[in-house]
């Protein structure tokens, strides 16, 4: 039986896939990893899931040409503002060229297969593509 695992635990593979933040019950600050308490208010009231919109604006980016061994280059890395919550991600379906990228451009969440392991488990990665591009999968 085939199964899937998300690249990160804050990516849910529903239809449509979404990124999920952990929101502090006391102050509303949002995080993506397991928390011991809130870094914003220090509160220990706990956290609730907050589903983030699938589309947002590119706040900043870089095109990485020199990376650690095993990381394919060049690739576009950026920060995306999803309705007031910032997320870090790669950009996909876009040429790694400054002329193809604009600060503030609209982008949307895309998922893609990262390959299947020996047990038949497929890892699903995510990135953001220009919202204006046609609807097609990521190679």
């Amino acid at each position, binding site marked *: 039986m085939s199964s899937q*695992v998300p690249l*990160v635990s804050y990516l849910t593979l529903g239809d449509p896939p979404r990124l999920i933040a952990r929101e502090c019950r006391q102050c509303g600050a949002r995080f993506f990893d397991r928390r011991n308490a809130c870094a914003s208010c220090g509160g220990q009231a706990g956290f609730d899931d907050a589903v983030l919109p699938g589309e947002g604006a590119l706040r900043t980016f*870089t*095109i*990485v040409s*020199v*990376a650690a*061994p*095993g990381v394919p280059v060049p690739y576009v890395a950026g920060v995306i503002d999803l309705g007031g919550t910032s997320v870090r991600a790669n950009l996909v379906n876009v040429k790694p060229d400054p002329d193809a990228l604009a600060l503030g451009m609209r982008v949307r969440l895309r998922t893609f297969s990262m390959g299947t392991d020996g047990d038949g488990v497929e890892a699903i990665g995510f990135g953001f593509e220009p919202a204006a591009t046609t609807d097609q999968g990521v190679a």
Partner: protein
Amino acid sequence: MPETVWILGVHMTKFGKHPDKDLVDLASEAALGALADGGVSIHDIQVLAAGNVTGGPAGIGQQLQKQIGQTGIPVYNVTNACATGATALRTAIMAIKAGEADLGLAVGVEKLSGAGLLGVTGTQRGDGEPWRPSGRFGNVAPMDGWVGTETMPGVFAQIGLQYLHDHPYAGAPLELFARISEKNHAHSTLNPLAAYTKRMSLDQIMNDVMVAYPNTRPMCSANCDGAAAAVLISGAALRRLPAEQRRRAVKVSASVLTSDPWQEACQVLPDVSTLTRQAAAAAYEAAGVDPADLDLVELHDCFATAELIHYDNLMLCAPGGAVDLFDSGATWRDGRLPVNVSGGLQSKGHPIGATGIANVWEICQHLRGEGGQRQIDGARVGLAHVIGLGSACGIHILEKAV
């Protein structure tokens, strides 16, 4: 009224490749140089603060003592990423301010020649290897490269472009940041202790190897070996010294260390601005100095993109006015407010543990009128700034003895 602290002696080694010297050799050279510069010996020192980031777990302070004098004094081994040197300096200053010591020694040292990209290690995945979630993000592959970038050139590239997003810029970012780098490489030609002293044209900088757009290789801080050290003294002890020995002392008008307060997005892309603004505000207030009073600034240009935003963070310009400040020519050596006359981290080099004392050494050279070819004439007040990602910000404001 807390004790005023002074720099009595200060020394910086040549930055660059030192294949024949280990960490302890470099630290010893800087420490002995600072002691000689201050006219004191290791037996006069009552507290030692030593900083090193990549040299391993053994205490660099005690290793240094084994070479230059095991006197039994308290040793604080400190680390704070690229703000490690400033943290060592501040640790010694705090001990003096607390009244626990009259004289202290702060040393920062690093060996980084040929270190390559810092902060990322890379992984190789075998065919069919199980996808196994791990760590706090439950990730099945490295975050770096799959979920944005953790490379330093890439992180600071985004920080620079974010500034141009928040304060729209009509020109080409690559050319803007290359011009900042051109300035610092030009400055380095007058600094014999810099790792690289080659003037580079705008074309050369723009067309060099692209590391992380818009940062090309010459826009990145240069990994190298080096050390710097300072002898700190209380005002009371300074007054007991002969006039000739007191003459070159430099006043530490402000010594501030901050960490990054929580901000939206700060755990997604490091926020190196808020903690710098807070440190700058505290430092100006402590020193009773206005940004307009500064005669020179050494700021943390770990990448050309970083220098731009710190003009704004250090309040050297009106909010949002960093590009205008640079375009005015003010930050060139012959400008109104010279920035990184040493050549900055892009050409002087960035042995990370040493940087936060080396920038203080540079300011002292000018305040003492010993800046040689690159002397800023009549310099009376200078500011030294470092950022350690994670994050820590150290700022020292220094003044010429009256």
